[in-house]
């Protein structure tokens, strides 16, 4: 399979069997060859200048033309050679300072030496990758913010976690990695189904998914109010249209809808089945069975498979609902595009007391509101609103300095710990709020020291 990546294209076939971390060169034809470690002649004193006062940037210092370089590439000359050629044909190279020469070589190498390293996926790799290339898909969750969430949430083996995220499954994957396949996770999802695109990139062993459950957000309210049951589950769209057609009385459609309704009623014995529907299918059955027997058999098998899958899904849903009803989750992680307040207020109900929870939001304001609503609700302490500031450094002899700052772009976190909710007394909850809220100016000083 051809992989195209940043103007390079190659086949991965030759990479199979090598250890993770191996560096390859892309040769002509797109094949990968393990790269040999080349001894850089670093100890030679190169001819170099002292500063750039006499270097004029007129775009004419490189004698090789675009076509010359292309010809070299077409000849199949190695990237290293091309870089060497560029250096030799540059009139200003030896006037540059050593540092500038280093920088020049590095830049040309990056452009002409087709070198790739294949690494094993991990939260570190995937979160930095997603933040750099597809931040929109992960609500601009910067990787250090994700790191804070995993620690503040005490994510570890054996927990029963509730995760609600719309970050392509990256947050879920990170949680799964820190749980190592132990414990269980219930992923809450909006819409039709959970998105786990990024999760599959982690390469987890199959058994990690044995204790991964999912539950639709749209059923949370009914679960909390106690009205959740299989009856309230929406039928699949197909079922609805067929139920309509049934009443039209067309033969073919009768046939298929017969099977549909049959399938519906068979596995769900507990479910209330429409009495008249049942009657109808039995009547139709008697009439058409002989005539369409073969066709029936074939489509019956497909339908049976579909029926089995549907039954599996519904079974899992009931199981997951039961897990949630226990209200003993060890923690809650929220990182989504939705307003966090309604999510927290409802999902916290499923969490046991004295457990941490962390909410990520790209913006600060919704978390301000969340904080306020949580104070009103009570049952939470140690609420903290924070963001992290990350700075990368270039460390080279005599050239150490910060590289680029990414501050302000990483999102915000609201974290806290659940406590037993005192539902009876409004008084105690307000005094709790007072207790845990705004400190007096005296306390501020102590706070400063504790940082």
């Amino acid at each position, binding site marked *: 399979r051809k992989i195209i990546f940043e103007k390079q294209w190659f086949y991965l076939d030759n990479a199979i069997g090598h250890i993770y971390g191996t560096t390859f060169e892309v040769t002509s034809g797109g094949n990968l060859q393990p790269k040999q470690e080349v001894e850089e002649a670093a100890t030679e004193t190169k001819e170099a200048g002292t500063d750039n006062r006499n270097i004029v940037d007129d775009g004419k210092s490189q004698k090789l033309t675009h076509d010359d370089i292309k010809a070299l590439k077409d000849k199949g000359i190695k990237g290293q050679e091309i870089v060497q050629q560029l250096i030799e044909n540059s009139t200003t190279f030896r006037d540059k300072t050593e540092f500038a020469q280093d920088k020049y070589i590095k830049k040309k190498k990056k452009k002409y030496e087709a070198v790739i390293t294949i690494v094993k996926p991990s939260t570190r790799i995937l*979160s930095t990758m997603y933040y750099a290339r597809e931040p929109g898909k992960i609500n601009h969750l910067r990787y250090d913010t994700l*790191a804070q969430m995993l620690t503040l949430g005490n994510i570890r083996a054996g927990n029963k976690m509730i995760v609600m995220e719309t970050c392509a499954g990256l947050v879920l994957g990170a949680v799964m990695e820190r749980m190592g396949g132990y414990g269980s996770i219930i992923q809450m999802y909006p819409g039709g189904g959970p998105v786990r695109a990024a999760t599959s990139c982690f390469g987890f062993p199959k058994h990690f998914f044995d204790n991964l459950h999912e539950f639709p957000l749209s059923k949370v309210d009914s679960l909390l109010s106690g009205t959740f049951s299989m009856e309230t589950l929406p039928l699949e769209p197909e079922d609805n249209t067929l139920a309509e057609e049934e009443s039209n009385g067309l033969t073919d459609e009768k046939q298929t809808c017969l099977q549909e309704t049959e399938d519906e009623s068979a596995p769900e014995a507990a479910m209330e089945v429409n009495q008249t529907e049942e009657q109808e299918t039995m009547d139709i059955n008697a009439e058409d069975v002989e005539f369409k027997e073969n066709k029936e058999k074939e489509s019956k098998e497909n339908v049976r498979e579909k029926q089995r899958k549907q039954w599996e899904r519904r079974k899992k849903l009931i199981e997951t609902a039961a897990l949630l009803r226990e209200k003993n989750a060890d923690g809650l992680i929220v990182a989504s595009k939705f307003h966090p307040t309604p999510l927290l207020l409802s999902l916290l109900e499923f969490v046991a007391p004295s457990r941490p929870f962390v909410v990520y939001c790209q913006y600060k*304001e919704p978390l*301000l509101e969340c904080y306020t609503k949580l104070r009103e609700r009570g049952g939470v302490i140690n609420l903290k*609103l924070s963001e992290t*500031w990350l700075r990368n*450094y270039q460390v080279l002899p005599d050239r150490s300095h910060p590289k680029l700052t990414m501050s302000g772009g990483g999102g915000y976190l609201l974290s806290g710990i659940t406590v037993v909710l005192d539902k009876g007394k409004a008084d105690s909850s307000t005094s709790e709020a007072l207790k845990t809220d705004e400190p007096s100016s005296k306390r501020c000083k102590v706070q400063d020291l504790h940082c």
Partner: protein
Amino acid sequence: MSFVEYGDTIKDGDTAIVFLGHESMFPVKVQHGTVTQTKYGVIRHSTDLIGKKYGSKVTCSKGGWVFILHPTPELWTMNLPHRTQILYSTDISIITMMLELKPGSIVCESGTGSGSLSHALIRTVAPTGHLYTVEFHQQRAEKAREEFREHGVEHLVTVTNQDVCKSGFGVSNIADAVFLDIPSPWEAIGHAKSALKAEGGRICSFSPCIEQVQRTCLVMEEYGFTEINTLEILLRMYNVRTISLQIPDLGKAAEDNSSAGFDSSNPSNQGSPCTNLQQGTVQFKSGVPLREMVGHTGYLTFATKS
């Protein structure tokens, strides 16, 4: 309870966290017959703690109350007795992720110090991983061993009392990750490399001074480490406050009865004619930064063993 597993009820011998209110908490060793003094009064372990659910509210003798929390490495970091300067959860978080730690990982650490990072590492590698931690100060090493025992995690950690720069970590070719928080990390890089597994191991060095970082990076390169990368991370906290700002009195034009329009939403000013004394306020919620924040803890340098 355990630092690596949740329990529901408080038991004799547990370490629990007593939460008194804003930023105020302390750890307590739960023991039958013992009594703990707080500013709200006395807590009797036998009646008030043992058997209660974690997260419960406990009323103290003077009538005030506290919450009893299940310990976590993060709560421990905020409340442990300092024997040395410690690492806080902000740095610990990024270290854990960048070293790719997870259940089953083998980690080497030096120096153990007050055990702040150690507890977090043990939590992450449990139940199948292990922490080898080296501390050259004899009493600190012994105190660390004692704490790990009390917290029920001694099976996950080995404390060695030696100088990592001279004698290494005591293991070779098995570590997934090595962490160094010592004055001269460049002296330990060689030992770190031999402790790490053959391919793909990760290393992290924490140093407050850039000169230390420069020396360490050079030595890492000499020893063939790749992906050498230095960063720093800082925590910005916000206090959620309702702020009221006064609207200034800009006077009134002679015949103008309505205000400039800014405070149309403020009922106290609507339709009010003249008088300078009636000045309204606007309220809003804000995340206010703290007066002072931590500006620097240390530089974190990561690399991969190739």
